[in-house]
C-alpha cells in the first residue's frame, strides 16, 4: 500500500483562526501522510505556531475543521493526547528538574506505570545518549542538549505523531544535523512528524512541506515539486562590484530578486522572463551597459529559497501592482 492510499494522519479543511480582527491562519487545507516528515516553512508571524496549536487541540479554530489521527478537533483533543508528542517553540521542560526527573515525569504523566517508566527512561536516555546528563538540571543544559531532552521527552510515550514547533531555532549547525538525524530515525520507526522551521536547509530535508505566508498555504509539495516550476528561472552571476550590481539589477524588469552569496549573485527571474540561458545574455548586456566589467552569467539550479522568494514576490506583485517595480509590466 502506498502512503497515498492510507488515511491521512492530519487532515484540515478550511482551517481558520482569528485573533480579533487579525487572521492568523487562513483557510488552510492540508493532508499529512503516515510516516512522512512534513515541514511547515514560513517567516515569523506567518501562522505556523497557531496552526500547530490547533492541530494539538490547544486552540479552537474559528472556522473549518481539523482531524488528527482520526480525532475531530478540538472536541476530541483529550482522546488524541496519548498518541501525540509535542514540542513547543519555547523550551518547556521543568528547568529546575534534572533530565532524568523530566523524562520520568513525562512518562508518568502519559500514564506509564512506575516499572515501565524506569525501563523507558533508561532506554530513552540511551537512545538519545543523554546518560552523561541524567542528573543535570534541564536549565543548566546548552541549547542543543535542551532540545534533545525536549525531543526525548516528547517521544518517551512512543507517539504516532510528533508536532515540533521550530525545534532547532537558535541551534548551531552541528546540533541541528544531529537533531534531524533523530527525526529521521523516529520517522523510520513509524512516527509521522509535523515540523515547523524557517531554515531552508531543514525544509529541503522534509518529505513534503507547505509554505505558509500570512496564514495561508502558498504552496505545498515535496521540495523538488516546489522547485520544479522555477527551472530555467535562475541565473548565477559573477561581477566585480556585486553591491552596485544589485542596485542596478533592481531596475531590470527581468529580475525578481537578487541574493548575494559571497562573490556570486543568485538571480531569480520574473515569471515573464525568457529562459535562463537567454536571460543570462540579456543581464550580461544590461550590466555592461551600466559600466560593469568582469561579468560572467550562467543558468543555475533553483533551490527552495528561490521557491519561497518567488511566492513572496508574487504576493507583493498582487498587493502593489506595478508601482513597486517600475517597468515590470513591460517585460516581453
Amino acid at each position, binding site marked *: 500500500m502506498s502512503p497515498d492510499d492510507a488515511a491521512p494522519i492530519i487532515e484540515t479543511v478550511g482551517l481558520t483562526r482569528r485573533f480579533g480582527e487579525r487572521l492568523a491562519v487562513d483557510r488552510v487545507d492540508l493532508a499529512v501522510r503516515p510516516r512522512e516528515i512534513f515541514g511547515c516553512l514560513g517567516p515569523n508571524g506567518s501562522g505556523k505556531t497557531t496552526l500547530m496549536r490547533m492541530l494539538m487541540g490547544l486552540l479552537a479554530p474559528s472556522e473549518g475543521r481539523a482531524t488528527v489521527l482520526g480525532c475531530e478537533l478540538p472536541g476530541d483533543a483529550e482522546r488524541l493526547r496519548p498518541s501525540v508528542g509535542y514540542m513547543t517553540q519555547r523550551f518547556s521542560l521543568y528547568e529546575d528538574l534534572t533530565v532524568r526527573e523530566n523524562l520520568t515525569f*513525562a512518562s508518568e504523566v*502519559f500514564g506509564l506505570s512506575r516499572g515501565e517508566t524506569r525501563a523507558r527512561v533508561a532506554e530513552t536516555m540511551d537512545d538519545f545518549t543523554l546518560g552523561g546528563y541524567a542528573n543535570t538540571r534541564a536549565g543548566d543544559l546548552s541549547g542543543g542538549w535542551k532540545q534533545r531532552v525536549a525531543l526525548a521527552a516528547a517521544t518517551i510515550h512512543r507517539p504516532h505523531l510528533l508536532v515540533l514547533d521550530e525545534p532547532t531555532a537558535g541551534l548551531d549547525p552541528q546540533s541541528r544535523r544531529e537533531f534531524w538525524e533523530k527525526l529521521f530515525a523516529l520517522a523510520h520507526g513509524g512516527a509521522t512528524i509535523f515540523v515547523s522551521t524557517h531554515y531552508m536547509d531543514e525544509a529541503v530535508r522534509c518529505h513534503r512541506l507547505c509554505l505558509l505566508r500570512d496564514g495561508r498555504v502558498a504552496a505545498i509539495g515535496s521540495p523538488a515539486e516546489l522547485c520544479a516550476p522555477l527551472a530555467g528561472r535562475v541565473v548565477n552571476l559573477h561581477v566585480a562590484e556585486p553591491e552596485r550590481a544589485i542596485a542596478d539589477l533592481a531596475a531590470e524588469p527581468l529580475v525578481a530578486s537578487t541574493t548575494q552569496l559571497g562573490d556570486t549573485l543568485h538571480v531569480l527571474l520574473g515569471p515573464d522572463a525568457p529562459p535562463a540561458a537567454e536571460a543570462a545574455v540579456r543581464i550580461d548586456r544590461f550590466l555592461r551597459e551600466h559600466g560593469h566589467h568582469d561579468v560572467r552569467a550562467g543558468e543555475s539550479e533553483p533551490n527552495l529559497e528561490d521557491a519561497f522568494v518567488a511566492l513572496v514576490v508574487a504576493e507583493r506583485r498582487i498587493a502593489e501592482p506595478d508601482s513597486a517595480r517600475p517597468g515590470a509590466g513591460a517585460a516581453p
Partner: protein
Amino acid sequence: MNAPAAGLRARVRLALRRVGAMARKELRQLTRDRLSLGFIVGIPSLQLVLFGYAINMDVRQIPTAVLDRADSAWSRKLLGELEATQTFDLRRRVRSEAEGIRLLESSEVGAVVIVPPDLDRRLLRGRGAEISILADASNPTVANAVILAGQGFGRDWSSRMQPYVVGPTPGAPALHLVPDDRHGFAPERDLVRAEPIRVAVLPFYNPERRTAVFIVPGLVGVILTMTMMLMTALAVVRERERGTFEYLIATPVSRSEVMVGKILPYLVVGHVQVALVLGLGWTIFDVPIHGSLLDLGVGALPFLAAMLSVGLVVSSLARSQFQATQMSFFFFLPSMLLSGFMFPFEAMPRPAQWIGEALPLTHFLRIARGVLLKGAPIQSLGGEVLAIVAFMAVALGIAVASFRKRLE
C-alpha cells in the same frame, strides 16, 4: 574655577535627565498595569473600610446560654434586664451546667448565665443571691467584656435597690429591704445585704486571660491562609510564565488531576507549619494544648485544602506571579480582619459578621481555639468543619472549571 563648576552642572543635568527618563518609564508601566493601579486604590480602601468596621473593642451581643434554675418572675426580670444591657444575647436555654459548658466548648456561646434556684428566697430574705456567668476566656477581649458587664450589672441592681433600703447607714451589715412592690409579697422587715445580687464571672479555658494564649492558635490559621494560598496561587501562573503550561496541557493529564496534584504536597507542608507554629507557641509563650493534636490535624485538613483551592482560583485568573501575589492580598486582608483573629467577632457589625461567616479562617479559628484551648473534640465542631468543606468544594470547583486545557 569655572570649568569644574560647568562640568558638575553638566553632570547633574545628565543625571537629572536619566532620573527623569527612569521615572517616566516607571509611570508609563504603572499606568499599563491595571492590577497594580487597582492595588494602589483598592487595598487602602478595603483596609479603611474593613478596619473601620471591624475595629470595635466594644463587645456587644455575646451569644449567651441561660440556665435559669429559679424560673421565677424575679429571675425573668433579672434576665430581661441583663439582656437589656446589650452585652448579652440570651439566645439559648439550657437545662444543665454540662449542656452549657458543651455550648461554650463548641463556641456556640461565649457565656453561660446561671441563675440559682433559690434566687427569690435569697433576694427577698436579703441574703444576696449569686449569679454565675461562665465566660469563654479563650478570647480575653470577650471575657473582659463579660466581667465588666457582669460587675456593672451587679452594682446597678444593688444601687437600684438602694432607695428601698431602710436603715441607718448604707453599707452597714444589716439593712431592711422594701422591695419594688411595696404592697407586694415581700416581708417588710428582713435582713438584706448591701449587694443583693452578686455576679460572679468564672473565666473558662484561659483563666489568666493571656493574649498570647488567644493569639497563637489564631496565628496558626492566619499563617496557613497566607502561605497556602500563595503556594498554589503561584503554581499555575509559574507554569504559564516558564512556558511549561503549554507542554503540560498537551499531555493527557486532566484538569482535576492537575489541581489535586498541585494541592496534595502542600497538605503535608501545611501540617508541618501547624506543628512549627504550635511548637514555638508552646515553648515560648506557654500556649496550652488541651485537646488532641490529631483532632486539630483532622480539622486543619479541609482548611488547608480550602486555602490551596483559593490559591488555584487566583492562579488561573492571574497572568503573572506578581499579579497572583497582589490578588491573594485581596483575599487575605478580609480574612485577617473579619475572621475574629484581630478583633472580636462579637464586636463586629452584622454585615461584617456575615462576610466573616463566609470565610474559612473564621471557622478554622473556632476549631483551633476549641481544640487547643478548650480541649473540645473535633466532633463537637462538626458545623465548622462542614462550613470549611463546603467552601473548599466551591473553591475547588471554580478552580477546576477556570483551568482550561486551552490557550486562548
